[in-house]
C-alpha cells in the first residue's frame, strides 16, 4: 500500500543534504510551510540555496535560517519587507548571495524545471538591469531574454488536504507557489492541515496530483497569523 505520510519531522527532513537547493512555497504568510522550515532549522543542513518569493521577516523561519548562517544564497523576487532586517544586514555585509528574479520569471523557471523544459524565452526584464548578461533574441516584433529552468533538490509545501497518495488541495490564496514548486524538486515534502482518505478529494478537484509528492506530514496549525 502506498503511504506517503511520515509520522515525525525527522522522517520528513531525512536526507536533506548540505548544499541543497530548497524551494519554499507560500506568498506572504499564506501557504507558507512554517513547520517544515522549523524542521529544516532543526535538521541542520547548511550551505543552502533557498528559493522563495520573499527573503523572510522577523527572526523566525527563513530569517532564522539565514541568521544561523545556513543559507549561502537566496533566489527571490522581493527581498525587502517591513521586517527583513536579518537578510538586509547579511546582504550588506556580503554574507549572503542574492539572485533577484522577477516574480513571474521565478514562477515560470520553477514550472519549467517541473515540466522538463531546460530554458524558455520571456520579454520580462528585457532592457533592464535584470536582463543584463542574458542571451537576448528576437521573435516576431519583440526582443526576449532566455531564462533557465530552476529545479530544486527539495521543495517544502503547505497544503490544506492530503491523502496517502499525496494528492493535495490548497486553501484560497494559499495555493500560490505551492503547486508549482511541488513539481520541480527531486524530493517534495508537504505539511498538510488535514488528512483525508483516498478518494475523499474528487478527482477533478485534486490541485496537485500525488505524483509530485514524496512525503506528507500532518501539521494542523490553523490559520496563518494576522499581520
Amino acid at each position, binding site marked *: 500500500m502506498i503511504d506517503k505520510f511520515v509520522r515525525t519531522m525527522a522522517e520528513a527532513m531525512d536526507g536533506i543534504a548540505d548544499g541543497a537547493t530548497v524551494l519554499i512555497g507560500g*506568498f*506572504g*504568510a*499564506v*501557504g507558507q510551510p512554517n513547520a517544515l522550515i522549523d524542521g529544516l532549522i532543526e535538521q541542520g543542513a547548511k550551505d543552502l540555496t533557498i528559493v522563495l518569493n520573499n*527573503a523572510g521577516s522577523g527572526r523566525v523561519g527563513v530569517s532564522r535560517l539565514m541568521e544561523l548562517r545556513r543559507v549561502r544564497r537566496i533566489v527571490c*523576487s*522581493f*527581498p*525587502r*519587507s517591513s521586517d527583513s532586517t536579518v*537578510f*538586509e544586514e547579511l*546582504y*550588506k555585509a556580503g554574507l549572503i548571495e*542574492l539572485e*533577484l*528574479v*522577477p*516574480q*513571474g*520569471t521565478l*514562477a*515560470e523557471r*520553477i*514550472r519549467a524545471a517541473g515540466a522538463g523544459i531546460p530554458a524558455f524565452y*520571456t*520579454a*520580462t*526584464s*528585457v*532592457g*533592464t*538591469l*535584470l536582463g543584463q548578461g542574458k542571451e537576448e533574441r528576437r521573435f516576431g516584433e519583440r526582443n526576449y531574454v532566455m531564462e533557465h529552468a530552476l529545479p530544486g533538490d527539495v521543495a517544502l509545501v503547505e497544503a490544506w488536504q492530503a491523502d496517502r497518495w499525496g494528492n493535495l488541495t490548497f*486553501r*484560497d*490564496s*494559499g*495555493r*500560490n*507557489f*505551492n*503547486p*508549482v514548486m511541488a513539481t520541480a524538486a527531486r524530493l517534495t515534502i508537504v505539511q498538510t492541515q488535514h488528512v483525508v482518505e483516498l478518494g475523499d478529494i474528487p478527482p477533478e478537484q485534486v*490541485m496537485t496530483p500525488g505524483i509530485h509528492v514524496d512525503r506528507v506530514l500532518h501539521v494542523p496549525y490553523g*490559520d*496563518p*497569523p*494576522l*499581520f
Partner: protein
Amino acid sequence: MPDTAVASYTPLDRKGIARRAADDIPEGWYVNLGIGMPTLIADYVPADREVIFHSENGVLGMGPAPEPGHENRWLINAGKQYVTLRPGASYVHHADSFAIIRGGHLDLCVLGGFEVAENGDLANWATSANDTAPAVGGAMDLAAGAKRLWVVTDHTTKTGASKIVSRCAYPLTAIGSVKRVYTNLCVLDVEPRGFVVRWMVDGLDFDTLQARTDAKLNRD
C-alpha cells in the same frame, strides 16, 4: 494649494489621482493594480461597473476590502493586504497567474512610478544600480506583459524634480511599455511623437505644466 502667481489650480491628491484613473476603466476589463497608490483605484470603480481585479498571487475577481474583524486570513493580495472575493472569482497558482500576465490577458495594469519617459520606458523599482537588494516583485512581468500599462504618480518629487522625463535615469522596469500617465496635474498619453496632454486639472495651462515637466509635452 495654488502654486504659482499666475495660474491658480489645485493638484489632485492621491485619492483624486486614483479616482481620475478609475473613471477611465470600462466595464469588463481585467485589471491588475500595483501596490500603493494604484490599489486605491479599486475604491473608485462603482460596484455596478464590473471590473475584474487580478492579483499576482493567483486571485481573480477581488471585491472591496473586508470589514475589520472579518478578514479571511487565507486571502490576501500581492500587497499582502486582506481582500474579499466577488461571486465569479477564482484562484490559480503562481505560474498560471503569471501566464495570465505574461500572455497579454490583462486589459490593464496600473503601477506607480519613479520616472516615466516619453518613449514609454518606466522606472519604478530601484533608485540606483547600486541599490542594496531592491525588490522587483512582479513589476517587470506586469509592465512587459499587460495589454496596457498606465502609471499613476505625482508629477514631481517632493523636491520638485519632474518624474515625467525625456529619458529615465533610474534603472528601468520595462522599455516602451507605458501607454498613459495619471499625475496630480494631468493625464498624458504616450504616443510615437512623445507625451500628449489629454487633460489638466482646472486652472492649469499648458505652458505652466510644461515648465514643471522635464520631457517635452505635446498638445492634444
